[in-house]
């Protein structure tokens, strides 16, 4: 490799790192991807000048075809289908890494034990990422609707993994392994990825995709070593490491330990974790709540008796002010009978210093909920229970309620499964656009505040 190419690769690696760093803040995220994009183009272009290259026609065809199809599909797909697209592109990266290893094996040429070991490792991981991502894509795309599970799932997984290792060892040890062995190795690796991923439910998919993404990064890094290309190493390993951390963060944000996601099958209640969750209460983290509100246009806060119990009014107002500083419109909606006495919420909001012109009553505000990005319900329950509109047999039937369920997103702050004054279940909590933010209001709003602040540059 010539010095110039090396230096370009080096610069590309640096830009990738800076790009990823930029992408981890909402303020700079877009710049980050654009930088990385230019770097990628630069890397591709200089590669054509690598000494001793052949097969340019084929190469350009492959690039145009692969890149074109991906570009087009990425452009036309609906926003809601993005996750599966990420999955499939990621799988392709894994596949590419595996293919690189395959070609190296095919070309023979000894790299030494260490390099071959890493090549095999990369091939294994890349293959798993490839087939796993394909399954993830199929599930999210609705092609594969049922969670599919073998009778002795974990035994099969273990067996396949062991087999892959054995075959891999053979490839490392034997000078020129027979292609049957190599082919068998890839088949086993692909199968392993598919079988590992199939039983996982739709709701856990984002975490799994993130994990597979980290896998691909690792595979790319390993193949980079084999090819003696530090840019690949750095980009791959950086993604591998950041992807691993990201996977942990995502799992934490969803309150699902990674272990549970991947090994759920072992506990026996595998199928359709995602589907089962539908129609149940969905939790979100304080960080999530902060992000959603920070990037909303309008937030309506609905305080209830729980805010009074928690004495959270000062924190709530502080949060509202922070959001307003960030350009979000925040207003308060007081239900006629929120709390336990007439004017209960007024007293508390006044104590916290909320100006009167930010406080609206039911009649004034109910029409605004459909325009609100977020309705934040803080310790209110009965007064936002849609049952009052629909269920004649309910004790609260006929009471006017705040139509928070019509907001784009509803976030409900409460401590747990506690019912309101009237003691009945709340249908709101099971709605699709509703997320629960569990915790005593004072403390959890404090956390939201911290995160909102962290979202500022």
């Amino acid at each position, binding site marked *: 490799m010539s010095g110039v190419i090396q230096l370009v690769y080096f610069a590309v690696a640096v830009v990738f790192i800076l790009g990823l760093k930029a992408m981890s803040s909402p303020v700079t995220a877009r710049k980050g991807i654009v930088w990385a994009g230019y770097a990628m183009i630069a890397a591709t272009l200089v590669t054509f000048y690598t000494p001793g290259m052949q097969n340019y026609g084929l190469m350009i065809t492959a690039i145009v075809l692969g890149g074109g199809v991906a570009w087009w599909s990425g452009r036309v797909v609906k926003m809601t289908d993005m996750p599966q697209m990420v999955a499939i592109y990621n799988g392709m990266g894994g596949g590419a890494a595996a293919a690189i290893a395959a070609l190296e094996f095919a070309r023979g040429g000894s790299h030494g034990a260490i390099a071959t070991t890493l090549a095999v490792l990369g091939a294994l991981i890349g293959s798993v990422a490839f087939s796993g991502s394909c399954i993830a894509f199929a599930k999210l795309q609705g092609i594969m609707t049922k969670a599919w599970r073998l009778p002795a799932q974990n035994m099969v997984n273990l067996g396949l993994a062991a087999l892959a290792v054995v075959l891999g060892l053979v490839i490392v040890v034997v000078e020129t392994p027979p292609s049957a062995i190599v082919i068998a190795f890839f088949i086993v690796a692909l199968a392993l990825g598919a079988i590992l991923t199939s039983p996982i439910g739709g709701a856990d998919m984002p975490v799994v995709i993130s994990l597979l993404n980290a896998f691909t990064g690792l595979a790319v890094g390993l193949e980079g070593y084999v090819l003696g290309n530090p840019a690949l190493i750095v980009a791959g390993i950086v993604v591998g490491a950041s992807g691993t951390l990201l996977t942990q963060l995502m799992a934490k944000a969803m309150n699902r330990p990674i272990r549970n996601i991947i090994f759920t099958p072992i506990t026996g209640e595998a199928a359709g974790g995602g589907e089962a969750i539908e129609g149940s209460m969905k939790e979100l983290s304080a960080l999530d709540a902060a992000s959603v509100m920070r990037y909303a246009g309008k937030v309506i806060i609905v305080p209830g*008796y729980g805010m*009074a*119990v928690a*004495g959270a009014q000062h924190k709530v107002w502080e949060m509202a002010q922070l959001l307003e500083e960030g350009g979000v419109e925040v207003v308060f909606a007081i239900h*006629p*009978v929120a*709390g*336990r*006495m*007439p*004017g*209960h919420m007024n*007293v508390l909001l*006044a*104590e916290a210093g909320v100006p009167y012109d930010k406080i609206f009553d039911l009649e004034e505000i109910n029409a605004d909920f459909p325009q609100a990005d977020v309705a934040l319900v803080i310790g209110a329950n*009965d007064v936002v229970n849609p049952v*009052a509109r629909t269920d004649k047999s309910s*004790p*609260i*039937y*006929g*009471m*006017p309620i705040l139509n928070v369920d019509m907001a784009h997103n509803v976030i409900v702050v409460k401590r747990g499964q506690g019912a309101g004054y*009237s003691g009945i279940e709340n249908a709101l909590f099971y709605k699709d656009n509703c997320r629960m933010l569990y915790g005593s209001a004072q403390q959890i709003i404090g956390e939201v505040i911290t995160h909102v602040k962290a979202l500022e540059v």
Partner: protein
Amino acid sequence: MPLLIGVPAETIPGERRLSVMPDVVKKYQGLGAQVVIQSGSGQSAHLRDEMFADVQFASSGAEVCSTADVVLCVQPPSPELIAAMKPGSVLIGMLQPWSGAERAQQLMDKQITSFAMELLPRISRAQSMDVLSSQGAVAGYECALIAADHSPKFFPMLTYAAGTIRPAKVLVIGAGVAGLQAIATARRIGAMIEAYDVRPETREQIESLGAKFVDTGVTAAGTGGYARELTDEEKAKQAERLAKAVAQCDALITTAAIPGKRAPRIITADMVARMKPGAVIVDMAAESGGNVEGSVAGEKVWVGDVLVIGPTHIASRMPVHASEMYAKNLYNFLSPFIKDGALALDWEDEVMAGCCLTHAGELRHAGVKQVLGL
């Protein structure tokens, strides 16, 4: 002929509220009803006749009652007014059902369909009609102001050039709607609040307003949000623990009432005697017998160096908003039954049926029937 809603002036001295407000009248008219008002009846609530649009004015209450299909009132109308009412017509207001056997008899005799708003079932849907809540809120706020105004001390803490004044201690007994409002108001002004109620769930409610709960270990949760009466033994225990809190406070506000019964005697003369000189007591229950021994309804009496105030018509101290709330409550109660300008009572409706006192010559409310012995 469209439904005619009549509003006679209130006759009881000191009563300054009115059962309609101009915008509520407009809403009745929107439903197709007509309204007749006794001329000048809104004066005490700062309402002039010309504020009411498209309304008939009558020169006397009797004239209103004799023409109206539905009569709205705040306090029970005088026997003369009831006598003037059309048989079969409807009367809605705070009719003091628990203490008016003669009145009930007269209503039955005249075949009047009367609704006593005090009897309203306390279900969620009926909250917008709940006059006890709305007027209780007014009363609680007013009692706190009365206490602050009559106290010879500052309620809030105040550091001034020559020293510091510690905040006053206010004790609130009974944490229903009125009690909670009194707590909130006194706390706003700056006092340190302790509060007590027999219903254990009030502890959380009291604390939610930043006050301290006085734990006496006695519980008296009743049904429907009302409190039950306590046994003598419980009363003694309660009294003992309370006595300490009473002795320490600078102002005491009592709001404990049990509907249909004499108010419980919670503060004895002995407890009053042990209070600080200059302490103030506001006994909101004075009218129904008083939570405080020695309180006199409608008067301010000095018991030793303690001022005991027994305010009456408390909500009338704030006639504009009290009337506004009351009028809206009545409207929310009545409006579902006005269809195309005609009255269509729905006896299946649990709320309406629940607060009916008399109908078609009968006393409809079982509890009241029992108490009045009719």
